[in-house]
């Protein structure tokens, strides 16, 4: 049942990605100001939004772990952070490519959006070393969850601070009123956002399912090895027999 829904989700996200990028390259006209390089935004911005959303979702899952102490919530939070970090690498790479094409530089340190995203990325890069430096699984999950909650609260604050900083150079794809994009561009952007979001959810579910299955297999192996070891040891005499011998 689970594998069937995962397969349907995978097919849906592949179809959504194909549709979104068909819209981007076949339907949306070239931007009057930036020309072809504006099409980078249909991959860069959705990746950034989904990545940041993943960090916030991981914080919510970590909070659920701290409330319930159910290890599955910690696993979900861990996978969400892990996947968001992978997406964040793609955000930084695609952003740098756009910056090089548009500004002539791979990186601009005076641009608050770029630097703040880098700070968020580096902050989450410390999550895994922190997590795996703790051996006790219960403590590991607790410390990692506290980190995820605090860092997850920092992400929207950081985002708001950048908005308030009023960057002049970084283009704003979405404003508070929903953006200034023409209809076809907005449609392609929303389709790309939905497709990247669906891809994220699919990969997240795939990894959570894989990790849960892996844990289950490990548990089964341990049980089987204990049972085999028990089979190998010859049966000890029963206490009644010992008493009979003494008598």
């Amino acid at each position, binding site marked *: 049942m689970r594998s069937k829904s995962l397969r349907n989700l995978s097919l849906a996200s592949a179809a959504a990605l194909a549709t979104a*990028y068909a819209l981007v390259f076949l339907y949306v006209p070239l931007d009057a100001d930036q*020309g*072809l*390089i504006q*099409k*980078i935004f249909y*991959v*860069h911005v959705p*990746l950034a939004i989904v990545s940041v959303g993943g960090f916030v979702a991981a914080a919510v899952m970590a909070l659920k772990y701290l409330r319930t102490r159910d290890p599955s919530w910690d696993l979900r939070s861990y996978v969400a952070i892990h*996947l968001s970090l*992978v*997406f964040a*690498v*793609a955000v930084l*790479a*695609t952003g740098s*490519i*756009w910056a*090089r*094409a548009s500004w002539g530089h791979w990186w601009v340190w005076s641009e608050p959006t770029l630097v703040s995203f880098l700070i968020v990325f580096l902050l989450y890069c410390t999550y895994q070393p922190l997590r795996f430096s703790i051996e006790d699984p219960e403590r590991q999950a607790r410390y990692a969850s506290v980190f995820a909650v605090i860092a997850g609260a920092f992400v929207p604050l950081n985002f708001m601070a950048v908005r308030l900083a009023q960057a002049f150079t970084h283009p704003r794809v979405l404003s508070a009123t929903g953006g200034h994009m023409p209809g076809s561009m907005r449609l392609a952007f929303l389709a790309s956002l939905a497709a990247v979001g669906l*891809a994220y959810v699919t*990969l997240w579910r*795939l*990894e959570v399912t*894989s990790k849960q*299955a*892996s844990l289950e*297999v490990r548990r*089964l*192996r341990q049980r*089987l*090895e204990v*049972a*085999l070891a028990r*089979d190998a040891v010859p049966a000890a005499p029963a206490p009644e027999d010992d008493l009979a011998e003494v008598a």
Partner: protein
Amino acid sequence: MALSEAVKYVAGAYLVFGTVLFAYLGIMAAKVTRMREEIASLSELLEAREK
């Protein structure tokens, strides 16, 4: 910017996303293969115990 130059940047950006996606899927596929091997070895252990 010339169209031929812009094509390189756009292709590069989409290639990054594609590479990330396929690399992730590749790693997941490798994990699933490893898990299948693990399950096969567990089945062997179980069969040995039943004999």
